[in-house]
Structure formats: C-alpha cells, structure tokens
C-alpha cells in the first residue's frame, strides 16, 4: 500500500521527542490484551474461564488475542524455623530455578503476544497480508471534535495518523493468581495465626467474626506496553509488511519469528474478595456465582489502580463551555455520573517547559452519549464545579479516581437540648453514585456524644434522681443531596433526612440507660477550601419520640428540670435543634 510510507513519515514526526517538557493533554484510547498464568486449582480455572467472557472497561479498546496460559509455577515456600546451611542453600537453589523458569516462560509468551498484538492491529489475514482497516477504525473512534474539524479542512487524512499513535498505547496485562481461598479457609488461617501470636505473647486469643461467606483472592498484575517507536515502525514496514496490492513473500515468511519489544510498566499485588453476609435473606448468591463474580471485581480494582497511576489511562479533555461547565467527553470515554475531575491551567516558563496548575474540581452531572465517530458537533457532558478559580474554555479536565468517601467532625456550640443534638458529632459519608446511576446524593452515618458530670436531672422514672453524671449519645443514618447555587460551587447546601437512635445514660450501670428514636433533619452549608477539605456549618434538628427503658415508657415525677438536656420532656415527643461548625475531609 503506497500510502503507508508517507503515513509512517508523518507518524515519525508526530512521535519525535521534544526537548522541552510538555503536559500531556490528549486522551488516546489505550488498548488492552489479557494474559494469564496457568491455573493451579479448580477455583482459578473457574475464574480464568469467566475472564474470557468479561467485557472490557468502556475507556479501553479490547485487543484480546488467542493466547495459551503461561506456565508459571509457584515459588517454593521457605521452610519455617531455623535452617541448616545445606537446607538454606537447597531452598535458594530451588527458588532460583523456579524464578528462571518463570522468567523464561513469561518472556517466551510475551514475544508471542507482541506478534499477535501487532498482527491484530494490522488485520493480518490467512495469506499473511496486512491492511490498515483496524488502525483507521480505532483512529476514527478516538479522534475528538477538534481533530474531526481540522480533518475536514485538511487535504491529508489525520484519522490514520491518530490510529498509528494508538499502536504505541497497546498494553498487555499479565494476571498471576497466587491464591484463591474460601472465606472459611481465610478465617481458619487467620485464627491459627492469631492463636499462635497470642500464645507467644501471652495474650488472649480472639477468634475472627465469621460473618461473611464467599471467596478471597491474592493476585499480582504486571503491565507491559508495546514499544512501537519510529525505528520499530521502520523495522516492521521493511521486514514484515506485505499487502494484497504489494505482495512480499519474503516478509510473509519472516513473520513467524517476528518479535516486538514490550516495556515493563508496573507491577502490583492486589487482594479482592467476592462475598456476602451469611445472614443475607434476599438476593442471595450461590458459592459458584460468588466465584464467577470475582473476575469483574479483580478487573475493576486493576482499572481503578491504572487510572490513578498511569497517565495514559486518565481521561483528559478540554473545558468546552463554562456556564454551564461542559466538556466533549461521554460514554465513549467511560464517563459516569458523579465522577470527579480536576481542572488545570497549563503554564509555560521561560525555558519553554510546561507545568499544570490545579484551578478547581468538578463532578459529572450529565453524561453525553458520544459513541461513534466524532464529527465536530459531538454532544457534551455537563459538570458541576466544586470550588476553585473561574473556569475558562480550553482549560484541561482530567479524571481523578476517588473513593467517594467523606469524613467529618462537627462541634455544636449552640444546641437547645444536648441529649437531642449532641455536642460533638463524627460522620462518614459515601457517594451513592458509586452504586446507582445518580449524582450529588450521599448516604451518611453519624455518631454524636455529649457528656457532663453532676447535672440536676429531676426525677426521671426509676433511672435518675437529683444530680447525676450524664452521657448522651446518638447514632443516625441520613440521605443527603447536594444543592449548588451557582456554577462555581464554592458554597453549597446539603439538606438531609434520616432515622436515628438517641441514648441517655445516667450512670455506669447498663440498666439506667434509656433510648428514643429520632428523625434527624439537617441542612449543612459547605464551603470548599480545597477539593479534599471543606468547612461546614450545620443546622441540625431532631424530632425525638418519648424515651423508653427496655420495657416501659419513661415517666417523670415531682420536680422537673431541663438543665439544657431536655429532661423535662423525656417522657414525651420532643424537639431539639443546634448549629455546628466543622470540617469535612474527602478521600
């Protein structure tokens, strides 16, 4: 194909390394190939069989090829206890032999994989001829609107150029499952370890709480990247290229021994579990179903890790408009509601080096369906800014993996009733967008406490009389929604409602404690200081039922004292309100 040499020439230019540092601003869709170590147990066989059907994450291209498992024997375990010199040397020799075998087998398989990956890119047919159809297809899928518009005004095809760049974004992920155990096996192992530890250290042994059933796996992932630089590209064209229009039988014959370098990118161990509570009544899965769910969880964990650590797996795009904040990304890039993006401005210093400076953060509130080829008029996804500077079109938007967790501490200097709204609250919130297709909703659990010695309680049933030491605690769960007033989102409101349980304890003895149910209704005003830290002012109210002992409603006799703790109405429906100041930290 005559067009190919000129395409390669243009490609060589675009991959030239510039001396000055530049910020990466383009998201070129990586492609992924899966490779596995040979299974050594029936559990592993089930997991690897299920992996074959597992679809790839939306933001990468499926580049799976037909591969054998890698013969990757387990490393010998060092015998426990003191070893003699001979025993130690024997162990070391065994270890070295197995390590060498693993390395050789893995390298052999990587050579085969590199050839198969290239064959797939260039759509090698049964006659050994290549064509650029997949390169064109993937290039077309990857280009953004800007490139599509420039392409229309250009006499050369920029889509093919983009496709060529994608070849160097080919990654092979090698899964080595080191251990799969049931939860019972896991609990037995941990109990044995804890029992031995307790015996050696003369401590009390506490067995594990066996609440879950299912499976747990340890696995290691090693990531390799196909090195398709200019000299490799030249080598491929000169020594292996053949096409229906330009047949080269020598090159076709040479293909069987072709190998292409694969760079080691990273290696990481993971622990994943697929479990359910033993008490679960509805939606209960079988043990087989739990095991078959493992590959999905493993790959989600790996993709989340890669998105955090490897720049090329982070979705990047330009801010398109600012009122509202939009960007031309969507389902094609795996964008989901409530995902977090940081917004950067690129600065250039006197030497011409570029550096990015964070200017704000935003979460996705609307996802565009942008599947298909960009035409220059793609739909946009909408985001809500959450504090930071004024945004401008052209700023860099970059996806950030986050856990969706927030932890808060609040102090209530003002409260009408310290048993209703306690003095100090600790909260943990989780973004519900991680579970359901929604944005700006959170589930919050909280714990409050107030305590004071020597308070006049009046006469409360048989549990309190006169001056008592009082401890009031509460536990509650809330459903909260974030509401923004403007596009910049520096300050926003978060109303919440839920259910709770309040306790009053008048002494150290348990049977003097009384409880009431509560309906917490709160509105927080939150000011973002940074994407991870916010200042919070909260108006909290509680509707409390009458307090109860284990059996009876509490009654009050004689003289009534409120003491700022609501003791006057412990036997009746009560209201409490308070205002807090606090801090929230986001992970």
């Amino acid at each position: 194909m005559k067009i190919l040499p000129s395409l390669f020439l243009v490609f060589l230019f675009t991959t030239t390394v510039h001396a000055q540092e530049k910020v990466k601003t383009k998201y070129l869709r990586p492609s992924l190939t899966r490779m596995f170590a040979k299974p050594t147990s029936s559990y592993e066989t089930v997991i690897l069989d299920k992996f074959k059907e597992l679809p790839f994450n939306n933001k990468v291209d499926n580049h799976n090829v037909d591969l054998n498992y890698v013969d990757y024997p387990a490393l010998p375990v060092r015998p426990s206890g003191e070893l003699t010199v001979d025993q130690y040397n024997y162990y070391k020799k065994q270890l070295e032999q197995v390590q060498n075998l693993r390395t050789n087998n893995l390298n052999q398989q990587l050579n085969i994989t590199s050839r198969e990956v290239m064959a797939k890119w260039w759509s090698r047919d049964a006659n050994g001829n290549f064509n650029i159809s997949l390169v064109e297809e993937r290039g077309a899928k990857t280009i953004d609107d800007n490139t599509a518009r420039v392409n229309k005004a250009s006499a050369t095809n920029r889509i093919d150029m983009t496709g060529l760049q994608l070849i160097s974004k080919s990654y092979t992920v090698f899964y080595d499952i080191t251990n799969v155990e049931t939860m019972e096996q896991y609990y037995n192992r941990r109990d044995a370890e804890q029992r031995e530890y307790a015996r050696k250290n003369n401590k009390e042994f506490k067995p594990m709480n066996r609440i879950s059933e299912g499976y747990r796996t340890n696995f290691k992932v090693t990531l390799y990247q196909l090195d398709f630089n200019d000299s490799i590209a030249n080598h491929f064209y000169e020594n292996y290229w053949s096409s229906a229009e330009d047949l080269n039988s020598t090159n076709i014959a040479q293909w069987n021994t072709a190998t292409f370098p694969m760079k080691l990118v990273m290696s990481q161990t993971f622990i994943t579990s697929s479990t359910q509570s033993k008490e679960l009544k509805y939606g209960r899965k079988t043990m087989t179903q739990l095991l078959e769910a493992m590959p999905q969880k493993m790959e989600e964990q790996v993709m989340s890790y890669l998105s955090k650590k490897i720049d090329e797996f982070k979705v990047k795009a330009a801010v398109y408009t600012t009122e509202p904040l939009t960007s031309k990304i969507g389902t094609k890039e795996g964008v989901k509601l409530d995902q977090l993006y940081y917004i950067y401005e690129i600065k250039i210093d006197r030497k011409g080096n570029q550096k990015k400076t964070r200017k704000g953060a935003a979460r996705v509130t609307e996802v565009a369906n942008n599947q298909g080829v960009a035409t220059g008029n793609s739909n946009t996804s909408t985001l809500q800014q959450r504090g930071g500077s004024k945004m401008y079109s052209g700023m860099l938007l970059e996806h950030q993996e986050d856990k969706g967790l927030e932890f808060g501490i609040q102090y209530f200097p003002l409260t009408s009733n310290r048993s209703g709204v306690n003095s100090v609250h600790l909260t943990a919130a989780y973004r519900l967008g991680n579970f359901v297709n929604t944005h700006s909703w959170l589930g919050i659990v909280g714990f409050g406490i107030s305590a004071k010695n020597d308070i006049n309680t009046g006469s409360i049933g048989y549990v309190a009389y006169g001056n008592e030491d009082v401890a009031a605690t509460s536990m509650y769960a809330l459903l909260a929604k974030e509401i923004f007033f403007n596009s910049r989102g520096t300050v926003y409101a978060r109303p919440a409602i839920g259910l709770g349980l309040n306790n009053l304890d008048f002494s150290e003895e348990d049977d003097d404690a009384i409880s009431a149910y509560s309906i917490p209704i709160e509105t927080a005003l939150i000011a973002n200081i940074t994407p991870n830290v916010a200042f919070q002012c909260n108006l909290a109210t509680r509707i409390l039922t009458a307090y109860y002992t284990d059996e009876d409603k509490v009654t009050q006799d004689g003289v009534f004292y409120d003491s700022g703790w609501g003791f006057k109405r412990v036997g009746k429906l009560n209201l409490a309100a308070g205002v807090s100041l606090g801090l929230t930290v986001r992970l």
Partner: protein
Amino acid sequence: MNIGLKFTLLIFAMQLLMVTNAFSQKKRKADKDTEQWRYEIEAVATGVQGTYLIKVWSYSKDPNVAIEQAKKNALHGIVFRGFVGTEGVSGKKALVASPTAYDEHKTFFDSFFGKGGDYMKFVTITNDGAVAPEDRLKIGRKEYKIGVIVSVNVSELRKHLEKAGIIKGLSDGF
C-alpha cells in the same frame, strides 16, 4: 428625576465606561502586537485546494481577545511573514515580498485590517472557537498565549491583493 436616581445612573454610566474601556485597551494592545508582529504561525496540515491550514499563536491578558485576534494575525502573517513548513507540510513565503509594503500601502492595509475590515472574508476558525488545552498557555503572571487553528483562503486573498495592486498577478510578466 430625584437626586438619588441621578447619582445612581451616573455611577452606573461611569462603571460601564470603565468596563468598555478596559476591554478596548486589551483590544488596542492586541492590535499593537499584530503591528509589531508579536504572534507566531505554524503549519498544521495541507489545506484543501486553495487554502492554508495554520495554527496562530496570539498573546493577550484576556484569552478571549487572543482568540478574536487570531484571525487578524493569521492574515497579517500570510500577507507579510509567511511560515516555515513542518514534516509533511511545506512552508509558504509571504504574499507580499517587500517588508515596507504596509507603509507603502498604508491606507489600503489600515482599512483591510481595521474593525470589520475585509480580512475577515478570507479566514475561518476551524475548531469553532474551542481551544484545546495544549493551545491555552499562561506565560508570566498575567499573559496568555493562545493557539487557534484557522483556514485561510489564500487563492481568494491573492486575487483581492492583485486587484488592489498590492501584488503582481502570476501572469503579469507576460
């Protein structure tokens, strides 16, 4: 009209004047930069028949002003400066050979590059005004360098300049 209302209207008018003036100042600075050739042009790709596809880098404290100025800078560069080629894309010489041509034909060029001038007929921004992140760079504390890809209809521009007697036609030597 009571005195309070008059005072409010006066303050409002003064503020409007200040805002308009601030924007005009940035625009005048951008025009001065163009005259002093403070912009850069780089080849992007071979344009479709009769056009050049180039990226123009303009400077301003306001990125929006830089985007606006890109069209003018593109035409100014094509006419007086030319640009260097890149791999796969050939460079082009300036349409007007003489470096003193602007002064020699000052009346024409002041009108051509003036507000609402004819230069706008020959240039279009290809990316709909949407700037890519790599084309929006902050230099120093306040200034921005903005890259905009434009398509210049060189064949029509050449005809326009020939008709105005600024450049000789290709067949004028015969």
